[in-house]
Each structure stands twice: as structure tokens, then as C-alpha cells.
């Protein structure tokens, strides 16, 4: 039943590579195996997760090291009927793994499955169907499909994508742009990276559909420099798409001209803010622009520009091929479709969990995540990146959708969930939020530039036990100024982790009594 049929899949995803996948792939190649470097399935605790193709499906082996390879490779080369399933580290047929089959993979449906370098593999797994349908529709019909899907911006703001696109479409200009924000800088998020490394043609297709829908002739992807594997995968996919007529002049004979450029950031977190990103693309310091005008009216080089996140654009091909209503059937309330959650930090089973909106944080952390890596009790999770709230375990029943999270004083952001165990010191985490803001602030507005530094100093005094009550009042006042007075979400949301830490963990901000020995009691 499980005879190997030849190919061995060793992920080329950066996370897998970070724990030795390249060495494992080289060992398989040296043993004569036919190796495919796929993306990661998102079960990151199992990486490197090697899959051996058999007539019963792809059988997985977790945490493979080069030392394991000779024995595995020998089984593969013999194509023997020996029972792979009994082999050490075997996790069974990967497509039937309980962690995967309970998910609803829409955006990640091809990630880890296909060969990311193969345009033929992409097409065989449903690729280009969305673009072909889009090109048979008028731009306004495509925009309508996206509007009907209920798709909202996955970068964090959650703005309806169809409305944004309609604004660009309706703004007259001889030159328009689409720009993809691939500056995924939030700690605890890696979905954009994994999607592009594992299935880069989806982004090319999504952007080409966007170009047709809004009337753009040029596109720019802004990738952060910390993602060299993704840059390479995307550049290779763009070149291949040009060769096959999916980019450039007269795309698929439709008359659409669309040129796609890949640009790399340079280590500035703020460039994930869309107007900073536009400044950076234009070759300037990544300083935030005041709004209005919004980028949809005046974006890159003053022209109408559709700016979307990777996950937003990658949802588009499926929405257009299957129709907006099928996507809208998933989800809850005004949060339609699926959300790609990322389990990170001190978590036993970290990785990608794609589910319809509405799943609880508890289910994600406890069931998918399996608790902490350290084995200690979970104390808190930070949801939505460095600017997101700290949610205590008592708040884990909140449904993960835009509105329910906002109501509970948190935000979904880009869907990242960072788990901490009981050893975490929340005063240190609050201090870090301010410190991070002071390091990464673009400096344009005073509440963020100066407020973050004053925030670090104030929290330092609280930690040192100086006038704790008065300094907490001062800190709260500072947070209010930053929230209301900052130009963008960097200064405006830094108070969210700070204030949620104080609210839920006041004991961490109280003066520590010092014993004569010097040890805290």
C-alpha cells in the first residue's frame, strides 16, 4: 500500500532551513533520491518534515536529520513495500494528519504541496483559473466579486478590499499602480513569508487580477530584507510568469499590460505602514504620510494606488475563480472567509492554522498549539503583533474575528499569536513595547518619537519602585496622548500592549519587596 514511488519532498522554507533542511536535502540528493524542495506544511515543530511519495499518498517523517537519511533513502530507492509507517519519526500520510485535516486551507491550499518553482505544478493545482476568469470580466465586475466576498485587508487594518479597489478604479489617471505590502515585520507573524516561499505564483496571479480590476499597469512588491528566501522565490516566480505570458505586454492575449517589480526593504519596521512603504518605494526615508489623501487616490508617485497585504492579494485568485459568494460563506459576522493564524513563541506545536473566522483563542493555543514548549502553564498570549494586546488566559474564549476582538480591547492584526508561559514579566514586556517603538519610530510625529522614549523612562521608574502610583497615572496619560495624537498605528497602538499588560497583570507593576538578602520575596 505504501510503496515509495520516487520523489522525496524536503521543504526549502526558511523555517525548515533554519533547523537543517538544506543538509537533509543534500544528503538525500547524495543518496540518489529525486528531491523536491516544497514549501512548509506549516507544522513547524516537525521541521524538517520530509515527505516520501508513495502510492498511498505522501508519508511524512518529522525532525529528520542528515544522519537519518541513508536509511530512509535506501527504502525510497528500493521502492520496497516495507512498512514506512513503522519507521522512526513517521507521522503517517501528511494529508491525513489531524492537525491539517481539521483546518480549512484556502489561502494555504497549495503551500507545502506543490513545487514552488514549477508553473506547471501551479496550474495543475488550480492556478491561473482566477486570472483567466478575471480577464473575461470587466474591471468593475471583478471589483464586485471581491466586494461580494467580504474580503478585508489582512495586513491588520481590516479595510474592505473591494471598496479600496473601487476607489482606485473610479479615480481617473493615465497611470495607476498596485502595491503589495510584504513588509511582514510583526514578531509572531510569518504567514506572508511562508505563502510566498511555498506558493509564489499565487501572489503574482493576485496582483495581476488587481491590476486588471483597478486599471493599473505597474505593480511593486515591497519585501522586507529579513526574508531573503522569499525574495528569491518571488523573483524566480516573476521571471517565470513573464516567460509564460502571465506578466508583461498583452497578458494571455487580453490586451492587459502589467509589469511587476520586486523591491526589498532595508530593516525598518515602520515601512510596514502603508504610507511609509510608499515613501520607501519612491526612494525616501520611510516616514509616514499624513492622510488624506489616501493612497487609493494619491499613492505611489502621486498616482492612484491599490495597496494590499500579501494574504489579501493571495485570497483574490480563489475568490474570482470560485465566485465571491463562496468565500463569503465562510466566517462570521462582518469577518468573512478564512484567517491564517500563526502560532508562535513559547508554544509546543507552532505553525500555520488557517480556519474560518470565529475560532476561539483557547482552541488555537491549547488544542492546536498544545500548550507551551517549556511545559509550564500558559500565562498570556499577545495577539496581533508588537502593537497588539496581551490577552490573559481568562480571556482566551474570545472568538477570533475583527469585531469581537476589538470589543474585548484587543485586535486581530495580521493574525499572529505569541504564547508566553508563567515566567514572563509583564512589566518588562510593557517596557519592551515602548523601547521597540522608540527604536523603530520614523520620527515624524512627536507623540510617537518622544512619547516612546518617555514611556521607557517612566516604566523604568515603575520597575525600580519609584512613585509607582503617580508614574502609572503618568504612563496612562502618556498612552492616551500617543493613542490620540500619533500619525499612524505605530505610535497609536504601542499603548495597546502597555495598557493591556497593566490592566490584566497589575501585580507585575507593583513594587517588589526586597528581603535583606536582596532577593525579591
Amino acid at each position: 500500500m505504501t510503496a515509495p514511488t520516487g520523489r522525496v519532498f524536503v521543504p526549502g522554507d526558511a523555517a525548515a532551513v533554519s533547523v537543517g533542511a538544506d543538509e537533509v536535502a543534500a544528503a538525500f540528493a547524495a543518496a540518489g533520491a529525486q528531491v523536491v524542495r516544497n514549501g512548509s506544511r506549516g507544522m513547524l515543530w516537525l521541521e524538517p518534515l520530509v515527505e516520501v511519495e508513495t502510492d498511498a499518498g505522501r508519508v511524512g517523517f518529522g525532525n529528520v536529520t542528515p544522519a537519518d537519511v541513508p536509511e530512509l533513502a535506501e527504502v525510497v530507492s528500493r521502492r520496497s513495500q516495507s512498512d514506512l509507517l513503522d519507521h522512526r519519526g513517521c507521522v503517517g500520510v501528511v494529508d491525513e494528519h489531524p492537525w491539517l485535516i481539521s483546518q480549512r486551507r484556502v489561502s494555504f491550499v497549495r503551500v507545502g504541496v506543490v513545487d514552488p518553482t514549477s508553473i506547471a505544478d501551479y496550474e495543475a493545482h488550480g492556478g491561473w483559473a482566477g486570472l483567466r476568469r478575471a480577464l473575461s470580466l470587466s474591471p468593475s465586475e471583478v471589483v464586485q466579486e471581491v466586494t461580494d466576498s467580504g474580503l478585508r485587508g489582512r495586513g491588520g487594518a481590516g479595510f474592505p478590499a473591494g471598496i479600496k479597489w473601487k476607489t482606485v478604479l473610479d479615480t481617473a489617471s493615465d497611470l495607476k499602480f498596485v502595491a503589495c505590502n510584504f513588509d511582514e515585520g510583526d514578531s509572531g507573524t510569518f504567514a506572508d513569508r511562508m505563502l510566498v516561499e511555498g506558493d509564489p505564483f499565487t501572489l503574482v496571479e493576485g496582483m495581476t487580477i488587481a491590476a486588471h480590476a483597478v486599471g493599473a499597469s505597474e505593480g511593486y512588491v515591497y519585501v522586507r530584507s529579513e526574508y531573503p528566501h522569499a525574495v528569491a522565490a518571488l523573483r524566480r516566480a516573476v521571471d517565470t510568469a513573464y516567460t509564460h505570458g502571465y506578466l508583461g505586454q498583452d497578458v494571455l492575449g487580453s490586451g492587459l499590460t502589467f509589469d511587476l517589480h520586486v523591491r526589498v526593504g532595508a530593516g525598518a519596521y515602520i515601512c510596514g505602514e502603508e504610507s511609509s512603504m510608499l515613501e520607501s518605494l519612491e526612494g525616501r526615508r520611510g516616514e509616514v504620510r499624513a492622510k488624506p489623501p489616501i493612497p487609493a487616490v494619491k499613492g505611489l508617485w502621486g498616482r492612484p494606488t491599490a495597496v494590499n497585504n500579501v494574504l489579501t492579494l493571495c485570497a483574490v485568485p480563489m475568490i474570482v475563480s470560485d465566485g465571491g459568494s463562496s468565500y463569503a460563506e465562510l466566517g462570521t459576522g462582518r469577518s468573512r472567509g478564512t484567517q491564517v493564524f500563526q502560532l508562535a513563541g513559547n508554544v509546543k506545536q507552532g505553525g500555520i492554522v488557517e480556519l474560518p473566522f470565529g475560532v476561539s483563542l483557547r482552541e488555537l493555543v491549547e488544542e492546536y498549539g498544545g500548550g507551551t514548549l517549556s511545559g509550564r502553564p500558559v500565562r498570556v498570549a499577545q495577539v496581533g503583533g508588537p502593537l497588539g494586546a496581551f490577552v490573559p488566559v481568562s480571556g482566551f474564549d474570545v472568538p477570533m474575528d475583527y469585531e469581537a476582538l476589538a470589543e474585548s480591547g484587543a485586535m486581530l492584526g495580521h493574525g499572529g499569536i505569541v504564547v508566553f508561559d508563567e515566567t514572563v514579566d509583564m512589566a518588562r514586556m510593557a517596557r519592551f513595547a515602548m523601547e521597540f517603538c522608540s527604536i523603530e519610530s520614523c520620527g515624524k510625529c512627536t507623540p510617537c518619537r518622544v512619547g516612546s522614549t518617555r514611556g521607557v523612562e517612566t516604566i523604568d521608574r515603575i520597575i525600580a519602585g519609584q512613585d509607582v502610583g503617580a508614574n502609572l497615572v503618568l504612563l496612562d496619560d502618556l498612552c492616551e496622548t500617543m493613542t490620540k495624537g500619533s500619525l499612524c498605528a505605530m505610535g497609536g497602538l504601542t499603548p495597546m500592549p502597555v495598557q493591556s499588560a497593566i490592566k490584566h497583570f497589575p501585580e507585575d507593576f507593583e513594587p517588589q519587596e526586597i528581603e535583606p538578602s536582596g532577593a525579591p520575596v
Partner: protein
Amino acid sequence: MAQEGNRSQDSSYSDECTAPHYDGQDRHSRSCLMTTAPTTDRTALVRAIASQHLADRGPLMPVLHEVMEELGHIAREDVETIADVLNLSVAEVHGVVSFYHDFRTEPAAAHTVALCRGEACQSVGAEALYDGTRARAGSLGADVEVAEVFCLGNCALGPSGTLDGRLHGRLSAERLDALTEGWR
């Protein structure tokens, strides 16, 4: 006024040299050449890189990346050359170079360890690893720089870091010692 002053400096600079033929294919030999190359060759190379991007929209960031890749850092003289070719003020180019963490103005150490200090890595001990590694940088090798980075997108396999640009997960002091063995 300041801009005018910079400009005249630029043009006197450009008078000294003529850009040689730039062969985009010949990356390796240029990299080797430039570590010890005299100033005029450096200027010619930077000029050639910048000139190649003149037709691009917003060419500055790609030019700076390419100079970093070829020469390892962006020197003051490179800023002047780039400004001249792209018709920008020296202040504009300097402003961009100084804004972004990746652009360095001095040569790097022989080896670089960049450790993630993002929240996800902190939750599995990144702060202690970072502080400890900084304190004992000399024990990893003779010329080692320990830098901080905020998120490498490897947040489920932390603590993460890069060693000479290569990503590693599940780092510990012991693993760092093992991975840097060749540096000593």
C-alpha cells in the same frame, strides 16, 4: 545653500574619474577587487551601479542595496557619487542611508551574529541569549559583531538568529558555539 555646496563637491569629484565599462555579469571578480581597490575604482563601480538604475522609478533603494552587496558598506564618497548620478542632493541620499538599519557606513566585522529580540523569541529566552552573546562576543571569534534584529519570520522555532546572513532556529549558547566553530 547647503545643497549647492554639496553639488559643487560632487562635480569636482566626478571630474576626477571616468566610469569604465560595467559588466553586469562579472560579479565575483568585482567583489574581490573592491576590498582593496583604490578610491577611483570604487567611485567608478558605484557610478556604474547607480547609472544602471537610472531608468527605474525610485532607484535609490535598489542602488543602495547593490552597493552594500558589492562593497559591504556605503561610504561618504559613495553617497556623493550616488547623489550625483541620480540627481539628488547629498542630504537626501544621506538621509535615506541613515534611516534604514541595513545600510552601514563602516565595513562589517569578519563575522556577524544577528539575534532576534522580537516578542516571540523573547518568550523562549532570546533576551538572555542576546545579552549573554554580546558579553562573550570575543569567545566566538577574533572579529565578531553581535547585532540585534527584530523578527526574522521564524517565530515558532525561536530563539532565531542569523550567522553571517544564514538563518538558524532553536538557538542556544551551546548551538552558537557549535555553529561558529570555524570562526575560531
